[in-house]
């Protein structure tokens, strides 16, 4: 009881801190927080896959990129209202994830990791091929507006992202708690048992994969609006790896974890890059140390840290 009270207080304080960022921080810090939340939104879907469904996708940036390019495509066609672009990005990425997932989920384990990585790389080259969007140089896109509200204002944009982040966290919380979420976890625990109970594991995993892809597209479209620019780097495989790192950093299998992980990651990046240009070296070694120091693997370490008794 006290534990749940403590964790509720922690969640409340965390959300409160996020809510007042533009009020206490300067415009640079607000932008940094916006970037962190956008990455966090992208990672929320991956958290569903890795933390609850046991599907380690190393190609999550593919859907982030599709979302970004969808928003850019609509923006260049004159539709820069986020009410249009964001849902369209969600839909387009979800459909793409359905296709890629249908193929990738034919294999499991390490093969699944390699295949998702490969398909993301394919889309990376695909985005280079779109000469209309500047090929590998990318293209400028509009910042967009929300029902007449100009989003060039950093604070307005932050609160838009914050609202989307909260809704997405709530959505993922509902998914996890739903019957669908329970079946997904059962499949993760023991796929053969779930199948013998009559569940079509493939379909459940595919739907989860499509939802995760859609959520990533949501993040990608916000990133396009934020940067007023899209480029193939949105599809880059290092970004896919970073999404996995965010999920692990924030505590996999907790609905707020991806947001927390993204904030930690952006802060870490900010601090390290202020001291050295070789911050990737430090970051890589930190990552290695985190994994190596948990004797039973990051899953158990993080579930224990978050007080998840199911671990």
């Amino acid at each position, binding site marked *: 009881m006290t534990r749940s009270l403590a964790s509720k207080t922690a969640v409340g304080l965390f959300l409160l801190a996020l809510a007042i960022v533009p009020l206490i921080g300067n415009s640079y810090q607000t932008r940094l927080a916006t970037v962190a939340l956008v990455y966090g939104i992208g990672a929320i879907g991956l958290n569903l896959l*890795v933390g609850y469904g046991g599907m*380690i996708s*190393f190609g999550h940036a593919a859907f982030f990129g599709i979302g970004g390019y969808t928003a850019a495509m609509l923006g260049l066609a004159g539709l820069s209202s986020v009410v249009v672009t964001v849902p369209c990005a969600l839909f387009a990425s979800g459909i793409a994830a359905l296709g890629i997932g249908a*193929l*990738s989920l*034919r*294999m*499991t*384990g*390490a*093969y699944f*990791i*390699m*295949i998702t*990585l*490969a*398909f993301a*790389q*394919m889309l990376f*080259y*695909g985005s*280079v*091929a779109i*000469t209309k969007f500047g*090929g590998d140089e990318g293209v400028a896109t509009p910042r967009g507006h929300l029902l007449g509200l100009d989003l060039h204002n950093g604070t307005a944009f932050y609160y838009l992202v914050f609202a989307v982040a909260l809704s997405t966290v709530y959505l993922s919380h509902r998914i996890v708690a739903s019957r669908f979420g329970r079946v997904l976890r059962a499949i993760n625990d*023991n*796929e*053969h048992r779930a*199948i013998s109970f009559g569940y079509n*594991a*493939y379909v459940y995993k595919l739907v989860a994969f499509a939802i995760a892809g859609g959520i990533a597209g949501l993040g990608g479209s916000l990133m396009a609006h934020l940067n007023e620019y899209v480029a193939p780097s949105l599809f880059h*495989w*290092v970004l896919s*790896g970073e999404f*996995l*790192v965010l999920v*692990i950093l924030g505590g996999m299998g907790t609905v707020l974890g991806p947001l927390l992980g993204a904030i930690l990651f952006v802060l870490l990046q900010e601090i390290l890059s202020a001291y050295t240009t*070789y*911050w*990737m*070296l430090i*970051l*890589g*070694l*930190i*990552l*290695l140390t*985190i*994994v*190596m120091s948990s004797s039973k*693997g*990051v*899953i158990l370490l993080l579930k224990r840290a978050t007080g998840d008794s199911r671990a």
Partner: protein
Amino acid sequence: MTVELFLEQLVNGIQLGTMLFLMSAGLTLTFGVMNFLNLAHGSFYMLGAFFAAIMAAWTGNFLFAVILAIICTLLVGGLLDLVILRRLYSRSHLDQVLATFGLLLAFNDLVILVWGREPLFVAIPPLLSGAIEILPGNSYPLYRLVITAAGLMTALLIWLLIARTRLGMLIRAGASNREMVSALGVNIAILFSVVFGLGAAAAGFAGAMIGPLVAVQTGMGDEILIIAFVVVVVGGISSVQGTLAASLAIGIVDTMGRFLLPKVFGFTVGPALASMAIYVLMAVVLLTRPRVSAPARAH
């Protein structure tokens, strides 16, 4: 389009295929024997290229430099296995991916720290520079021909090692049942180190040989690593022959795509579409392959 040009591209494709085999051989062996997925495998390719470039500038002898580069990547691989990676062999794939992703990022920055941000260029050794006439009136760069031959010979050696020697027998046995091999009194730790070291050395060899044809720079191992993954997915881990066939097929499809697609789609879109060709091949293979369900054994 002439037949000669077509043949030339075919040889280029075989050359890429042999390089891919040298990369994916290590990946499939460590994956098959230790169930270990190594994202830092491309770093050995990059390190091999850097070691060879430095040694070639230092000693002035390219052959000597390549041999030193192989020894150096073997040592780096062996050391990594001993100090860090062997503790990951029994871990989940997620742990392995995260740890080796960290290693890869670290290696990419480490080579900048040590050798600078500017790419290194290696001269083709004088003895191997120039071109030879394969068909009347048609010449082909000698160096490319030599590394293709060297790659094919190494592929043959690896196959002989796996299929015909006692060590190879242990490796195959380890791939099909690790516990049983260790129960029969084989020192599994040493076997793992040998497999890992050999894989690293093969990747280092590929990197060292490719050095004179490309800019030796950070991150050069990343793209070929992902293509090697495609090889592993297409070829499966069942046999050396499967990996070799998949390597050559993907090398040829990629090179031919780069040659033919720009003719159809122009020189801006064509190359990018060509880069996608091998992934389409992978998708087709996945579609035609029966679906694999999760292993009954949890890990």
